[in-house]
């Protein structure tokens, strides 16, 4: 039986328009990133710095979380802790209910996607509206994001034009991107005006000063965190950094790696609710710290590197598999290389372990990662854990083991450690190469079957006079 993931892949590979949209966008993003780092030595220096900042923060994570909580509380921001997405959703709902609020305007937040917050609130009679242009388009289309930075990357301007025309028949049909953008501005302005609660994610949280930092270009993040009376920020527990001086280098490498911009239009640093005498800004600010499997990842010294991620998306922009199958094939909140290591660790190898196969191990993701997460190494590690019964902290360890595969490797391992048997086997295969099958399932659908040589490597080396050692 074909898995859900493979089914998605087959479907998405058969959409030439979507594939063309991804190819074009990823090529553009790769070039723009490259243009931002003209000096390879400088790039390596700031990668080292960014890696050190994130590794340092993770090495003191519990202390920094406590410091962040104390600082934020001092500043007048309410801090909430959630072990699961259900708890996080409940916390958000209870804040909404306390204020009798029925409308929420949202800045872009991947953690809120992780929580499934929009659907949850909808089920409780609350209207949660996305205000990032890409997320707004997707909410209209009832689709999840296909990229963590450019969520509607799979859509063409024609797709967006049709969607707007369908949902807002009063606005004249246009395929002009400026006009589509202005239409969204007009529609959403009224929503910013009237929303009772604003929700955002967090790019970095600074323990030293109790500051929540948001990176954006559109201004919707500022609107969502400035205009409504209540602001709720949601974040994973790993996003904290120690000092304010850690922020400039991280911000710089984030925007350059993500979209090839030296900086985004807005960098928004929030340290408190509206103070007495101030004339705008929310009267109440809340931060929800979400675990959802992160503390488990934290307990493994190697897998811990996963939590260094600053969510720039460079790994997916450079991934040959992601570019071809597209973000929706993965069926998870985080797609691409970071997704295939993060999602199986969170949900378990039994649920998303198959995703670890969505890699050619070409190494591009690891090479571009601004905080040097060894993604290919971790993919291998998770593939290994998927089929081994050894103790591991990753949920679902061993769940992908099959008797046939285990037996095949065991016999290979046995023969490889018995030279006589191994030589006999390879010689026999070389001699019998003429009778090997020409059809080898999926491999030969689009390729010729590989041909074995008529002599084994050992035989050739012996002919050349090299002794067996």
């Amino acid at each position, binding site marked *: 039986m074909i898995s859900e993931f493979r089914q998605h892949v087959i479907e998405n590979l058969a959409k030439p328009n979507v594939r063309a949209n991804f190819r074009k966008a990823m090529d553009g993003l790769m070039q723009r990133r490259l243009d931002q780092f003209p000096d390879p030595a400088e790039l390596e220096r700031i990668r080292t710095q960014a890696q050190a900042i994130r590794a340092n923060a*993770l090495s003191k994570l519990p202390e920094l979380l406590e410091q962040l909580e104390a600082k934020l509380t001092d500043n007048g921001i309410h801090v909430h802790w959630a072990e699961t997405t259900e708890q996080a959703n409940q916390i958000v709902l209870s804040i909404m209910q306390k204020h009798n609020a029925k409308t929420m305007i949202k800045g872009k937040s991947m953690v809120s996607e992780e929580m499934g917050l929009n659907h949850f609130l909808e089920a409780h009679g609350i209207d949660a509206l996305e205000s990032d242009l890409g997320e707004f388009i997707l909410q209209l289309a009832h689709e999840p994001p296909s990229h963590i930075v450019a969520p509607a990357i799979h859509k063409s301007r024609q797709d967006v034009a049709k969607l707007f025309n369908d949902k807002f028949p009063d606005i004249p049909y246009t395929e002009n991107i400026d006009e589509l953008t202005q239409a969204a501005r007009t529609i959403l302005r009224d929503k910013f005006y009237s929303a009772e609660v604003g929700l955002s994610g967090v790019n970095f949280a600074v323990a030293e000063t109790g500051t929540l930092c948001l990176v954006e270009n559109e201004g919707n993040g500022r609107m969502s965190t400035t205009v409504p009376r209540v602001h709720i920020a949601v974040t994973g527990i790993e996003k904290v950094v120690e000092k304010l*001086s850690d922020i400039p280098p991280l911000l710089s490498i984030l925007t350059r790696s993500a979209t090839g911009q030296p900086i985004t239009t807005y960098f928004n640093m929030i340290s408190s609710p509206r103070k007495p005498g101030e004339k705008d800004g929310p009267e109440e600010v809340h931060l929800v710290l979400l675990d959802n499997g992160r503390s488990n990842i934290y*307990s493994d010294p190697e897998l811990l590197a996963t939590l260094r991620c600053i969510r720039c998306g460079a790994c997916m922009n450079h991934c040959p598999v992601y570019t071809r199958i597209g973000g929706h094939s993965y069926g998870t909140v985080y797609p691409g290389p970071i997704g295939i290591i993060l999602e199986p660790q969170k949900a378990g190898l039994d649920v998303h372990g198959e995703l670890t196969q969505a890699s050619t191990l070409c190494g591009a993701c690891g090479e571009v990662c601004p905080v040097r997460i060894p993604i290919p190494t971790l993919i291998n590690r998770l593939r290994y854990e998927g089929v081994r019964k050894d103790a591991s902290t990753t949920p679902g360890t061993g769940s992908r083991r099959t008797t046939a595969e285990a037996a095949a490797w065991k016999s290979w391992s046995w023969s490889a450690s018995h030279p006589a048997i191994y030589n006999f086997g390879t010689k026999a295969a070389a001699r019998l190469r003429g009778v090997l099958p020409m059809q080898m399932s999926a491999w030969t659908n689009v390729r010729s079957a590989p041909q074995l040589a008529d002599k084994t490597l050992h035989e050739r080396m012996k002919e050349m006079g090299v002794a067996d050692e």
Partner: protein
Amino acid sequence: MNNVARTNILQRLRKETPPQPSPCQGKEQDVSSFDWDRAERIRRFTERMEAVRAEIHHADHRDWLDVLTEICHAKGLNNLLLSPNTTWGQAISAQAGRFPTLRHYEQPIDGWKEEMFYGIDAAFTSTLGGIAETGTLILWPDAEEPRTMSLVPPVHIALLEVDKLHTTFAAAVQEQGWVEKGLPTNALLVSGPSKSADIEQTLAYGVHGPKELVVILVFSHPA
């Protein structure tokens, strides 16, 4: 629930001692300060700002009001929101006749939100400084110049004194002593007018924030 969650999360994080990061090689390396003189700082700031369609105007202490008048006229502004109490705002208010109707942020936003959202053409604010490397304004909104001034009106006119142009963000944080001073409710870096590339990675300006950002660079000596 909250406290239980907190205890459990912290307990799990403390169960294993994570490996200490290799000595913070690079962490202390200062990769982010440059030896740029004033002219070079201005050149870089202007280049970056103009690359994202911000307008840059040069002025000095004597003629900046003329420059502002021209900007207001060129844009056909009907009104201009500003604080009458900053040094700059006082000077503008003293010659109010030269400008479009001057509006003040007299009460909390809740009392005049509709006009703020739909009736204000432009806002004028001061800035705490600028960043040359990235073409960035530093804003620390306060009771005089609240947060929405640089966000809601379609045009934001910001005044930047050339002497407050720092090389990098890191240098600005250090030289202005942000940690020592303590951060305000909201600190902002603004690098151009609002924009998006969410449709086909094609840049479109004026999404949710100001459609236009105008910077008046004021030189302490005639430029």
